[in-house]
């Protein structure tokens, strides 16, 4: 690869709003909460930002969320955009921020996203979110919620590889245990495999507790050039080492394989750019809209062979002491899922892990990390690899 983002930029500030049920705060105000925390963390002022990259918010009327939020914050950036590739947007925000800084379009970019899906949606917007996300001619007339697209991939995975309902449930159990040690997590009470299997069907093979949460909340990050991070004397910059994306289809019936996804390609690009392999990764944030999603991603990201994701989870490999501790904050399943911003919480957790700030959640010796975001029934895939100064 002749051109590379490796080590050219760093995350120097991270912050998030309160998450879960946060009534009375608009997406813009939740974004402002997160931005205030991220700027404080970076030791910068809002006037130090010259770029804003955002994902739009369902509960906000603004089509140009990044522009509306700049006005709300009282800044006039010289670089701004919204990205929209569903759940994969989070990782693309970091990939694009790194590229924009490396290419000279901006020096210090605020990456921000917030939404209030739990308390901020009118009934009309809530219904639209359910029915308008799939194709109106070829999919939605048959009553296919977005959950159904993920469910069909999971059933196929169970059919091809013998993955069990109990193995799916284990993902939820493990992530809930992680959330139990995360201050502010939306769901912290421990659950068992039996609790998941008895939580009622949503769409087979998924029960209620196999599904991610619906939340309010947002997160924000300050990304700048490695030179500026050094000039500012940032104690623990978290470097962006590699990024990759892949878009294999729009319609679920045109997904090339239901069990092997574009995460194979997106992560391969990211690993190549970062100059590392799956076995080198110390801690990961893996998009977890449903339990089966995690099992398939553990395979496609290269943490275990194809078809062995269920056993990998069952053997404790995605938690402390295992091969790759994942979603140590509790993920979309138990920490919070506010839509497109949901995967930004994985980044927030990973930044804290790489700075060694996670207390009882800390993964010992975490230097190299991967975050993978996806969306649209596995249509959109984006991977970002991050590391400490020691990994440069």
């Amino acid at each position, binding site marked *: 690869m002749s051109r590379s983002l490796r080590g050219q930029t760093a995350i120097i500030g991270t912050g998030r709003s309160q998450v879960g049920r946060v009534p009375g705060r608009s997406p813009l105000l939740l974004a402002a909460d997160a931005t205030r925390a991220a700027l404080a963390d970076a030791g910068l002022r809002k006037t130090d930002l010259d770029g804003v990259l955002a994902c739009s918010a369902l509960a906000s009327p603004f089509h140009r969320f990044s522009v509306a939020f700049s006005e709300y914050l009282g800044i006039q950036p010289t670089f701004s955009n919204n990205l929209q590739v569903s759940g994969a947007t989070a990782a693309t925000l970091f990939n694009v921020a790194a590229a924009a800084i490396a290419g000279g379009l901006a020096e210090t970019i605020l990456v921000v996203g917030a939404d209030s899906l739990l308390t901020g949606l009118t009934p009309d917007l809530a219904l639209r979110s359910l029915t308008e996300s799939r194709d109106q*001619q070829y999919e939605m007339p048959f*009553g*296919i919620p977005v959950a159904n697209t993920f469910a069909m991939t999971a059933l196929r995975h169970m059919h091809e590889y013998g993955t069990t309902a109990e193995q799916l449930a284990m993902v939820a159990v493990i992530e809930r245990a992680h959330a139990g040690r995360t201050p502010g997590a939306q769901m912290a009470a421990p659950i068992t495999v039996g609790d998941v299997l008895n939580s009622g*069907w*949503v769409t087979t093979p998924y029960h209620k507790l196999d599904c991610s949460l619906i939340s309010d909340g947002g997160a924000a990050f300050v990304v700048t050039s490695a030179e500026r991070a050094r000039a500012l004397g940032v104690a623990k910059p978290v470097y962006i080492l590699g990024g990759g994306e892949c878009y294999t289809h729009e319609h679920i019936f*045109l997904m090339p394989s239901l069990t092997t996804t574009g995460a194979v390609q997106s992560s391969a690009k990211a690993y190549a750019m970062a100059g590392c392999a799956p076995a080198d990764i110390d801690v990961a944030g893996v998009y977890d809209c449903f339990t089966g999603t995690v099992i398939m991603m553990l395979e496609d990201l290269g943490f275990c062979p194809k078809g062995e994701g269920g056993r990998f989870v069952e053997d404790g490999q995605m938690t402390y002491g295992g091969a790759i501790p994942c979603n140590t904050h509790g993920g979309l399943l138990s920490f919070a899922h506010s839509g497109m911003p949901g995967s930004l919480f994985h980044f927030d957790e990973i930044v804290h892990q790489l700075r060694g700030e996670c207390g009882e959640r800390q993964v010992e010796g975490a230097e190299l990390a991967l975050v993978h975001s996806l969306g649209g029934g596995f249509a959109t895939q984006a991977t970002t690899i991050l590391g400490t100064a020691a990994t440069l």
Partner: protein
Amino acid sequence: MNPADALSKPLPAPDADSAALWAAMREGRLLLQHCLACGHVQYYQQGICRACGSDRLEHRAASGRGHVHSYSVVHRAPGPAFKADTPYAVLLVELDEGPRMISSLVDADPSAVEIDMRVELVFDQVTDQVTLPRFRPASGAA
């Protein structure tokens, strides 16, 4: 969205690419696009072949036979319009001609669906204007 609309199911609104598909559906034919340049067969209607880019596409009626590639039985409906139908089985059908399509099961208990189950096409006239392609277990199949 008008609150009253929430109670009615979304229906396909044909566009320039799909008008022929939905018109033929009313006459009891499911049209597939066959590429005369490379032989690729596609269900999703578009002006060019996804495999080779040729615009030499010919409509041919599908046999209506296929099998279930995957499925999911919906217990929590996506909105009030589908609530009365739950539980219902959404199918990802692979037609014998190759293309896959989303549909739903009729004339059978949704809990009886299995991957690889043989199915056959049924034309379901849902309004004067719209006929939807649905599937039932193939006759002669278990």
